[in-house]
């Protein structure tokens, strides 16, 4: 593989973090093909990133930020590059999670709230740490967490009670 990293090194990073990178990409891109493409691009960037990571936490945070940036960039161009194939995209199917209602509800949230929920409730970051990764103020992230959970609850209640 190209860049300054050996094939073994990139593969080791891949195996350590593919799950997390893919989850972020799927959560932000909302469909499997785009999530796979974005995740692959993230690891191509790992190959091309010339500097060593300071420590495992730096490596992980770098991948989170890069995955988020990659998805944001792809989404910026989504309408122009994929509009013609929108119908085809809708026909794509994939194995939905068992908690399909919750997943659908999560996808209705704004990107930043989805990301904050994932980092804090799944990856175990504190609001302050998540804020650092997302380049925001900790109080902003705390607000997003509260708003996100509130909206999820509302959506799920509507679905449950009709």
């Amino acid at each position, binding site marked *: 593989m190209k860049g300054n990293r050996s094939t073994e090194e990139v593969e080791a990073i891949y195996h350590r973090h593919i*799950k997390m990178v893919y989850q972020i990409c799927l959560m932000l891109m909302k469909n499997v093909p785009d999530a796979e493409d974005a995740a692959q691009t993230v*690891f191509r960037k790992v190959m091309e990133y010339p500097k060593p990571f300071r420590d495992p936490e730096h490596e992980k945070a770098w991948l989170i930020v890069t995955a988020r940036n990659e998805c944001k960039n792809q989404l910026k161009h989504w309408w122009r590059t994929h509009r013609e194939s929108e119908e085809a995209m809708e026909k794509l199917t994939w194995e939905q999670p068992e908690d399909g209602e*919750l*997943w659908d509800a999560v996808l209705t949230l*704004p990107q930043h709230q989805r990301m904050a929920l994932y980092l804090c409730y799944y990856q175990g970051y504190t609001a302050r740490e998540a804020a650092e990764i997302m380049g925001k103020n900790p109080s902003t992230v705390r607000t997003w967490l509260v708003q996100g959970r509130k909206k999820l609850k509302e959506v799920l209640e509507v679905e449950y009670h009709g």
Partner: protein
Amino acid sequence: MDDLDLRRMFDQIAPTQEQEATMLDRLHRTEREEHTMKRGMKRGLVALVAAALMMTAAFAVAAGLDQRLMDYFGIGQEDLTLVSNGIVQVDKSHTYKNGWTVEVKQLLFDRYCGEILVDLTAPEGTVLTEQDYRMDFQTLPTNRDLTNQGWGGGIGGEYLPESSDLAHGRISMLLHVHLEVASGDLLGIKLKLTPEKLGWWGLEEENDWEFHTLADFREESWTVKLTIPEEDPGRTLTTEQPLNVAGYELPVKQLYVSPISFLYDVSGLPFRGQPFDGDTVDGLMAVMGDEELTNAVLTMADGSQVTMAARYFCQISHPAEGMFDQGRVIYRLADIIDPNQVSSVTILDQKFPAAE
């Protein structure tokens, strides 16, 4: 729903082992293909790329729009004529005593939005890391009497990671200027742009968040004057129909469409003669400022619909704050359009036919 439900749900969206293997295989395969191509076709490819770049550059220069602005707004070659009268070539640069060079490249504008492309080059030896860079700057019109008119709005420098080259010390930023109500418009003004600082927000040890200043430009106070033409790239629409926002029937002061943006102004917010009322402001903001992009849609003459790519700006002003009882929302369009082809606009599910 509790934390456990969320964790379980996120667990379920992990890639399968088969997906992991497939993605890794694709990663290897792409690399091998690149490697083979590099060995076998290097000379041919270089010539081809050079020719393509020359053609692209020639076209972009002829049409006057930087490729990076085209990429950001999703402007294809076929759309260039639609934005051609909204382009101002600037190409002004300055190297500061601290070693940083700021190049103001181009401005793409309409009546209320200015999008300024800026390249910043770090001093030799500076190691740039991937950050969500922010650039602070000031703008001020120099040929407009501001005695009875305000000047403000949403401004901010957005980092363009795909256009930057951190390994070679270059950061590209897009500076947004979105005018608020009662700031007039951008047409015909001479705008003074003053870079202030470049950096990012980060956490300092155990303390609160702080702005990490990478470059401070304030000591030298270099300014660039941008002269914006008087011709409007967009189209102003009027309507007698009010817009219902959170139960309030608000007169629509104007609707404005340009190739890159959509704006609406409302007046008659329920504040006149009232003390500041945070709940009402928040209630209106929750509707008008909602980031749900389907809240506004343009319908074109051929029946197609154009959605919004981003909500740039939302203002709810209150007389008690020395402002006006007016509101403004500005969106960036998901597609480049010909404003003359807009047949109606839909805001919050309420349709407004396009009328001059």
